[in-house]
Structures are given as structure tokens and as C-alpha cells.
């Protein structure tokens, strides 16, 4: 116990003596964790949104009130692009609209008649041919309007892929930079204390005793970076989240209302950040010690 507090004190005092370098490593580590963490959040959120919208990737075929809906169904089914046709009656359509705009139900209560036309929701097998399909559906007798979904899923998928690549690239490059910086900090600390270290060896201090303060130093910088970047992530993520939730009506329809709430994962995120920071700190310290503190 006596020893542990002594070693901790040595580690902390080393951070202070070496504060410029410690601060530099803290900043780099923080930026690294922050960027990687934010990319992670975007990736996860995109996944959630994709799950929500992939089944919304349907073409809406609105029909006249007096159209021959069975005939139209046969025509649609005979089209080689079509894989699925789903009927939505005007009543169902109105219901789902009411559900989507829960906050403004009074809008619907005062309607003199049901404005929703009978609709077929059509899924096609090749989203690239969506324009062709729309053209073909439009000329069917009894169809008055065809709505193609914008390629929202594809758009989200692109975002996710981009952030996956960016996230991994950041993780690798900034991770390496962090480790190098930490290793350099350790090297400088070892150098500053070389005389003490030589004496410790002479008088019989164990290797772990000699090394522990440097570990404490590296891990503390790592943990502090974890904590700092967690706070920054929280501020940034919640800021952006706030932007979306203000216009939730629209985003909700696109599955945005399901994205991760920071407060739900705050503790887990803090743990992951601190663990990652401490790990980077430990790796940097070990690398440096095995090179500059051969025992």
C-alpha cells in the first residue's frame, strides 16, 4: 500500500515535470478518441436508420377512386421488374398518416372526406431501374400518380460506408500517432530520470518498481484523454442530435427517431473511451520502455 501510493505519486509528479509533453499527448489522444468515437456513432446510427428505411424503399402507385384495382394489380405483377405488390386501402393510408403525424391529429379530425387514394406499394428488384419502372407504371390505366422514393437507403448506406472507412483510417493513423507521442513522452521521462533509475538498479529496486511510475504516467494521460474526449463527444453528439430532433416529424418518418440517444449509452461510452485511452497509453509506454529502459 505504502509502495503503491509512492509509485502513483512518482507517476503523477512525472506528468507534472513533463507537463508540456504530457499535454501534447493528451491533446492528440483526445482528438483521436473523439474523431474515432464520433465516426463510430455515425456508423451505428446509419445502421439503425437503414434498418428502418429499407422496407420503405417502395414505389407508391396512387390510383383513381374508381380504378379497377384488380386489373392494375395484374398488370403490375406481370412486370418483370416487380417483386412485391402490397395494397393499402384509403382507410389504412389515413390511419398510417395519422400515426406519422401524431402531434397534429386535429389536422385529420376536421377533414370532410378521406383524401388518401387507394394505393399499391410496389417493391422492385433493381433500384437502378427505378425511373424505368416509374415510367411504365404511370401509363397504366387508372393510375393517376406514381411516387418513387428518393434513394434514401442508398444515401445512408453511402454515409455509413464513408464513415466506416474514415473511422478505420482515423483509428489506425491517429492511434499510431497517439502511441508514438506517448512513447516519446515516456522516453523523455525516462531520460529526465535516468540518474534515479541507475541508482534504483544499483540498490536493487525491482524492474516492475522502476517501470510502474512510467505506466502510471502513460495510463493517466490515456484515461484523462478518454474522459476529455467523452465530454467532447457528448457535447457534439447531443448538439447534432438536438438539431435532428427539433424537426423530428420529418426525420421520424425516415427512421431518425430511433438513432442512439447519448444519455442511453453514456456510461458504456465513457468506459470504452477510458479503456481505449488507457490501452493506447499502455502500448506507448511499453514500446518506449522496451526500447529506452532495458533492464
Amino acid at each position, binding site marked *: 500500500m505504502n509502495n503503491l501510493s*509512492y509509485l502513483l505519486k512518482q507517476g503523477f509528479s512525472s506528468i507534472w515535470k513533463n507537463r508540456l509533453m504530457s499535454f501534447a499527448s493528451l491533446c492528440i489522444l483526445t482528438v483521436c478518441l473523439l474523431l474515432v468515437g464520433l465516426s463510430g456513432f455515425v456508423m451505428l446510427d446509419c445502421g439503425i436508420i437503414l434498418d428502418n428505411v429499407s422496407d420503405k424503399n417502395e414505389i407508391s402507385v396512387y390510383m383513381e377512386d374508381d380504378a379497377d384495382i384488380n386489373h392494375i394489380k395484374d398488370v403490375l405483377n406481370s412486370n418483370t421488374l416487380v417483386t412485391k405488390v402490397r395494397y393499402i386501402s384509403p382507410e389504412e393510408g389515413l390511419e398510417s398518416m395519422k400515426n406519422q403525424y401524431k402531434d397534429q391529429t386535429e389536422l385529420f379530425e376536421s377533414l370532410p372526406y378521406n383524401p388518401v387514394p387507394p394505393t399499391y406499394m410496389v417493391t422492385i428488384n433493381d433500384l437502378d431501374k427505378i425511373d424505368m419502372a416509374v415510367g411504365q407504371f404511370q401509363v397504366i390505366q387508372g393510375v393517376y400518380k406514381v411516387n418513387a422514393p428518393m434513394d434514401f437507403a442508398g444515401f445512408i448506406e453511402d454515409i455509413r460506408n464513408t464513415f466506416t472507412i474514415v473511422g478505420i483510417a482515423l483509428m489506425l493513423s491517429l492511434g499510431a500517432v497517439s502511441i508514438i507521442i506517448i512513447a516519446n513522452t515516456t522516453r523523455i521521462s525516462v531520460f529526465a530520470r535516468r*540518474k*534515479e533509475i541507475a541508482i*534504483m*538498479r*544499483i540498490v*536493487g529496486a525491482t524492474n516492475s*518498481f522502476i517501470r510502474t511510475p512510467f505506466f502510471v504516467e502513460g495510463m493517466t494521460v490515456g484515461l484523462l484523454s478518454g474522459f476529455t474526449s467523452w465530454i467532447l463527444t457528448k457535447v457534439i453528439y447531443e448538439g447534432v442530435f438536438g438539431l435532428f430532433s427539433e424537426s423530428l416529424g420529418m426525420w421520424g418518418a425516415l427512421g431518425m427517431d430511433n438513432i442512439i440517444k447519448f444519455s442511453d449509452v453514456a456510461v458504456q461510452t465513457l468506459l470504452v473511451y477510458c479503456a481505449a485511452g488507457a490501452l493506447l497509453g499502455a502500448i506507448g509506454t511499453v514500446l518506449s520502455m522496451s526500447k529506452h529502459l532495458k533492464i
Partner: protein
Amino acid sequence: MVELKNVSVHYKEGVDALSNVNLRIEKGEFVFIVGDSGAGKSTLLKLITREITPTEGRVFVNGYNLTNIKKSKIPYFRRSVGMIFQDFRLIDNLNVYDNVAFVMRVTGQSKRDIRHRVPYVLDLVKLTDRAKAYPNKLSGGEMQRVAIARAFASDPGLIIADEPTANIDPGLSYDIVRLLREINKCGTTVVMVTHEHSLVEYFGGRLISLKSGEIIFDDVVGGAGEDE
């Protein structure tokens, strides 16, 4: 206590620092080692402290076989040996008291032991009133006395001193040797390397003389001064 059997040390650069040295030092002895510069004196001491291993032969110290000691055991072996150097090797930003306490702390001794032992050894080297002073405020003689206090702090059975009087005023060399002899009286074995023949002539005792890596003399010689 210390035993070297057919020991040779060849440094990589083709230097034969020691050739076929045989040596035995018993518990409680006080031994002077002399020799010209480059004779191999420091090399001999480094073997005893396990800073280096012999190219040939075997080294035993304090019951440890240093030829095949495990790396993890070396720190524990070192605790049984006190070392003193000509350049003192004190920590500049620690005062006298803390320089001595430092070695006890890093070898895991309790606060209570430290509080008892440090004043005792500082009294022994007559530095009680300098306990709060920092190394840069001390004379060479005082610094070496701190180093002796430090070496003696964990009560090792063996003290190794490599030219401890080389960097202090000649007149004060005698005080340093007297101090080491006092420690020796308490039962600690002392091995001291020096190139000051006057010290040996004055104090006498067992003398080992090295030349070009070989022992050319090993016997007890009489001293001119203080016989007690």
C-alpha cells in the same frame, strides 16, 4: 562471501580485462584492491555486483551464483550489496535525508524502518546536522559520506567501493577509509579499490594488487598508522 573461480573477462573490442583470476574474500574482511589504471579493478568490482558476467569462470557472492542467476533475482541480490562510486551518484533534487531514504523506499522497506534507520546511518557518517541540505551544497567529502550512508542503509553484508576517495580532498580520504573501517567493524565485508598507495601503507590490511588483468599480489600488509 565473495568467490571468483578461474574468471576471465574479455570485452568485445578484444580487450582482456581479467585473465584467469581466482579470489576468495571471507565474511568480515576489509580488502584493498590496487593497480594501475586499466588493470581491471573496476571490471572485478562489476563482476561482484553482477553488472557484467565473466566470459569464463564462475562468480559467487553472498550465496548467489552470479554466473547463472535469474534476471528477476538480481534486484534481490543487489540489496545484499552496498555500492560506492568515485562520482557519488546522489540524486540532485533530493536532500541528504531523502537520498538515503530513497534506497530504502525503492527496495520496499516500511516507513517505520526508514524513520528509524536513516537518522542512525546519518549519525554514523556524522551528517545529522546536514540532513536537510541538498547535494550541491555539500563538499566532496560530505557527498561521499552520504553515499556511504546510503550504501549502508539497508544493512548489506558487503560493501563495494570503487575509488571512493578519487574525487575528494586528499586529507579527507583518511576519514572516508576510517568510516568504511568502522562499518567493517560492525561485521560488514568491505572491498575498496584505490590507487592511493598511501592509504594502504597507512591503514594496512589485506591487499590485492592487479596488473594487466592478473592478480600479482594478495597478502596482508602492516599499516604505519592507527593500530587499535
